[in-house]
């Protein structure tokens, strides 16, 4: 079997970016989202990606119609009935993901691959809601999705080797590099990244560095793309709080314990760039 047609469940945030990446690589993409408003927002965002790619020269103008025509979307899950791979990219709620995996199983063929993009839940638990757990696994995209080349292909306990190979090959076709990771909390990247970010938040909270000094030192001294505080502002403080809290619940390792300053800032509505303020201030146009 080959992956020729791709389905995506969830048309918000990463779902839009994944749709753009997959369609951009020439695959027909069917996107399902139960929420009609989310579908409209998703379609708009998708169009914006296409326009911005043309503006920046990463996409040829002539390709625009083609990419747009490759995308179908709707609120009826049967839209996904003849796809070869479904990438589930709903909000990171375990109950929802479990339910959708079981619902999807009723719709798709028995050999369709179901992939969850979860960053913090057990891929094995989600996978086992599928009728065919050996055809299920994790595809963890790293943010920002259009910039980062990596997808962690997560092997659930029951994923078959054939399924893993199929998805690794698919990733290379959409321009991504892969590592095959165990289904252990945080997989590979977040297992190292989350403690690092927490350490930076606590270091700052304890008064050991000012924002600029901390960000400049780590960016210039270690060559990281961004210092930790401007990075978390970008990705959202609430997202990090969710991630580290979920991982802490599963690992009970103090390195993953949510730093008090993070909870405080999220409680106070300082979520980062998206709320206009996190560790730094942002005006609306920036």
């Amino acid at each position, binding site marked *: 079997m080959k992956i020729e047609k791709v389905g995506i469940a969830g048309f918000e945030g990463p779902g839009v970016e994944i749709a753009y990446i997959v369609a951009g690589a020439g695959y027909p993409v069917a996107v399902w989202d139960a929420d009609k408003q989310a579908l409209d927002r998703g379609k708009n965002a998708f169009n914006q990606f296409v326009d911005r790619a043309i503006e920046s020269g990463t996409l040829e103008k002539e390709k625009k119609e083609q990419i747009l025509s490759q995308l179908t979307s709707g609120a009826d899950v049967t839209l996904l009935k003849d796809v070869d791979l479904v990438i589930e990219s709903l909000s990171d709620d375990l109950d929802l993901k479990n339910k959708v995996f079981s619902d999807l199983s009723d719709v798709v063929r028995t050999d369709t691959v179901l992939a969850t993009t979860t960053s913090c839940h057990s891929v094995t638990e989600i996978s086992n809601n599928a009728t065919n757990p050996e055809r299920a696994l994790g595809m963890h995209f*790293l943010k920002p999705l259009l910039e980062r080349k990596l997808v*962690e292909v997560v092997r659930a306990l029951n994923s078959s080797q054939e399924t893993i190979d199929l998805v690794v090959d698919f990733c290379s076709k959409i321009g991504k590099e892969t*590592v095959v990771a165990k289904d252990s909390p945080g997989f590979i990247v977040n297992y190292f*990244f989350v*403690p690092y970010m927490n350490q930076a938040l606590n270091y700052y909270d304890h008064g050991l*560095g000012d924002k600029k000094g901390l960000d400049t*030192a780590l960016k*210039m*001294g270690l060559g990281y793309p961004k210092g930790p505080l401007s990075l978390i502002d970008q990705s959202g403080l609430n997202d990090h709080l969710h991630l580290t809290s979920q991982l802490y619940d599963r690992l009970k390792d103090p390195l993953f314990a949510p730093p008090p300053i993070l909870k405080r800032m999220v409680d106070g509505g300082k979520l980062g760039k998206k709320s206009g303020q996190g560790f730094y201030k942002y005006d609306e146009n920036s």
Partner: protein
Amino acid sequence: MSDQEKSVGVLGAGTMGSGIAIVSARAGFKTILVERDKETLDKGLDLIDRFFVKSVKKGKMTPEQKDLVMKKNLIGTLKYEDLTDCEFVIEAVFEDLETKKQVFCQANEVCPPETIFASNTSTLSVTSIAADSGRPDRTIGVHFCLPAQVMKLVEVTRGIQTSDETYDRTMEFGKKLNQVFVTTVETPGFILNHFIVAFNNSCIKAYEEGLASVEDIDKAIKLGLGYPMGPFELLDYIGMDTQLQVSLALFEQVQDQRFWPPPLVRRMVDAGHLGRKTGKGFYEYKGAGMFGA
């Protein structure tokens, strides 16, 4: 490559001292590089010369500029007396409190009162080094990054007794060196080592426990986070002996589990798998030389 008025002293022509001497001489300072024996000094000077040869090849400086820097700006010596005209003396000798105190005491006898002493220590207390330097108010931490000749960042750390004037003059000096001086609090590891030692140990530990292979962890970190090197590639540059020593030094001061070296670190040191410098660490290597141009 303008000529600076004042001279700079660099103590120790090892990895860091050679790199710092390159930065200083390249910025136009007359640079006095002091070693304890002729052989080590010549080795350092030779590495520096080969670095500048590469710079010329890459078009980063003209052959005339190289000659000026090597023949006029840079002076290698075994005598502390040659430090008498230095505005700054930067020590980059072994990471050992007694050695650092001893070289500053020697410099203190020959340098005028206004000379500032700067320590490149990674893990020791700036306050403690300053206390026995003979001029605690004029002693400060300036921690260059490896490889110093390439990396722009320098962490500047005041000891308890460091004066405002010393701090201000050091920050001014940073600009003349064309480096980015960032102020840190005096806490073990400052900023960079506080983070990178813990991060690298967490990677070694996870690898040792079977989370993933060396290659996969490096690939995941580089492509997933956009870091320039994977942790194991970086560790092979740093050297496992240094990783062990820095880990132990930080752990001793803060007793934080994150700094404790995972058992594999010692096993690799015992086996001589130190990294690039021994040809084998997490990866295997052929040929050695100085990084960058």
